[in-house]
């Protein structure tokens, strides 16, 4: 077994990507994820793999597009403004059905915003982000270990479904150090990449494209994509439920906020308030069924996010009016503290008489 080592999230995810067999990393510096680019520049060279510092995020995602088209495991990373710039490439990856991994270490927005942690890119990440009817799988880990584990999963999901997988972290998760155990994990059984551009030697020409001009051809492609998304929604939802059995108030939070909310839940329980936590790990596919099931019993739902209320819409869709859904959101780099969440829990439970 490998030893516990102290690593920041950015470096841990980079090393995990290498363990997952990432053949090529392309990226452009942006805070708060610069440790990834710097780490990869050293480690990929040591491993005899590909590292390129691109001239822009636009170039980086297109380098990923190129490497992915040849069947290689490839990734890029950036932070919010850079991810916006990558949306063109993300849409093309979806249209061409190429596997890729994109890490977004979110910072405050809109615009150049700031470099503080944020979850303001939830809509962009879970709704596709670029033009057209498409989705990316979005993983929202909560700890450095989980962030590292997500990288392995991300490469497997990408290859299995020929899809872009986004790992959605934030400035805290990228920068904080925590003990991690990094070891090679077994890969899923994956389909062969017989579509890859490797040179048409002794076989028919392979074409990777996202342009479908023939009548009905693009509709057909979209139907195929939707069927794939449906399959992902059925099979790949990940979600943690904590103290849910008797919970009268349910916090829904992901990523860094979920860690903070978990402490708040524990403290609420110490005060005799029956609080629970649902932590979506896959943000798309969203754990709609789990939240819907939890809403079969009447309870209060409180979504806590580092944004002005984005995931709360998915929670509302899942709860479908069966229970009240409230929001505590902190935008622009504000991080909700334990006391702050706890106070919100107290207020809400007094009002409903749960305490």
């Amino acid at each position, binding site marked *: 077994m490998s030893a516990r080592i*102290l690593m920041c999230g950015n470096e841990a995810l980079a090393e995990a990507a290498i363990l997952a067999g990432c053949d090529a990393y392309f990226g452009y510096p942006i805070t708060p994820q610069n440790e990834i680019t710097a780490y990869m520049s050293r480690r990929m060279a040591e491993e005899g793999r590909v590292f390129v510092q691109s001239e822009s995020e636009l170039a980086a995602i297109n380098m990923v597009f190129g490497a992915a088209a040849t069947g290689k495991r490839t990734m890029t990373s950036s932070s919010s403004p850079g991810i916006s710039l990558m949306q063109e490439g993300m849409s093309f990856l979806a249209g061409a059905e190429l596997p890729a991994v994109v890490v977004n270490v979110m910072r405050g927005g809109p615009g150049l915003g700031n470099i503080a942690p944020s979850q303001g890119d939830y809509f962009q990440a879970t709704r596709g982000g670029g033009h057209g009817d498409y989705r990316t799988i979005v993983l929202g880990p909560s700890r450095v270990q989980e962030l590292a584990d997500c990288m392995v999963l991300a490469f497997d999901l990408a290859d299995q479904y020929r899809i872009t997988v986004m790992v959605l972290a934030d400035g805290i998760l990228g920068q904080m150090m925590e*003990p991690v155990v990094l070891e090679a994990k077994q890969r899923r059984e994956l389909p062969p990449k017989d579509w890859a551009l490797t040179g048409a030697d002794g076989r028919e020409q392979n074409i990777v494209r996202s342009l479908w001009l023939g009548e009905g051809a693009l509709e057909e492609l979209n139907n195929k994509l939707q069927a794939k998304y449906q399959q992902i929604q059925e099979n790949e939802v990940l979600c943690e439920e904590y103290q849910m059995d008797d919970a009268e108030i349910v916090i829904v939070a992901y990523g860094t906020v979920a860690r903070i909310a978990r402490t708040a839940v524990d403290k609420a329980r110490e005060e005799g308030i029956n609080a629970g936590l649902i932590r979506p790990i896959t943000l798309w596919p969203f754990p709609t069924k789990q939240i819907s099931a939890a809403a079969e019993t009447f309870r209060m739902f409180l979504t806590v996010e580092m944004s002005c209320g984005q995931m709360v819409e998915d929670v509302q869709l899942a709860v479908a009016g069966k229970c009240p859904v409230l929001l505590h959101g902190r935008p622009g780099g504000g991080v909700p503290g334990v006391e702050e969440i706890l106070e919100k829990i107290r207020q809400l439970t007094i009002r409903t008489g749960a305490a």
Partner: protein
Amino acid sequence: MIAPNGLYEEIVIAGFGGQGILLAGKLLAQTAMKAGREVTFMPSYGAEVRGGTANCMVIIADEPIACPTVSQPESLMVLNKASLSKFGPRLKPGGLLLWNNCLIDSRPELNGDVEMVSVPADEVAVELGAPKSANMVMLGAYLQKRGLLTPDQASEALRDVLAERYHKTIAVNTEALRRGAEFAVCHA
């Protein structure tokens, strides 16, 4: 903060960029991890660190740590005046404050029952011929005072947190940790 029966120590180390604030925090976190504790280390980052203020938050606990940010530390090490003004008022009642009396000219005035240790961190470091090791003097004093981990354990972790090109400074950093601890025994 939680785990009432177990250890849950929240620490903030703060100063200005270049004082080795983040290194001291990393060393503390690494030492705690090697001692089998759960730990998180959260640095301030980005442009503000260069030439501005630097701080980091370290949590040492028996159970997995939920929240990596610290609003009310139990222990606070401040190496300059601005950091004292920023973090001093957040110190938990009954908490421990170690302050660098070389760069903070008057005794801090904090409300509540706070234990204060005045450490001549820069002076001791200069005496050692290693003015950059004031961070280690401060950390040594903290370790001695708090008693969760020893300066020897920290010295053993130096190798893990220092880049290889700085391994030549391990001896002097070890000495700085020891001198800080000694100071805490004799003067506090």
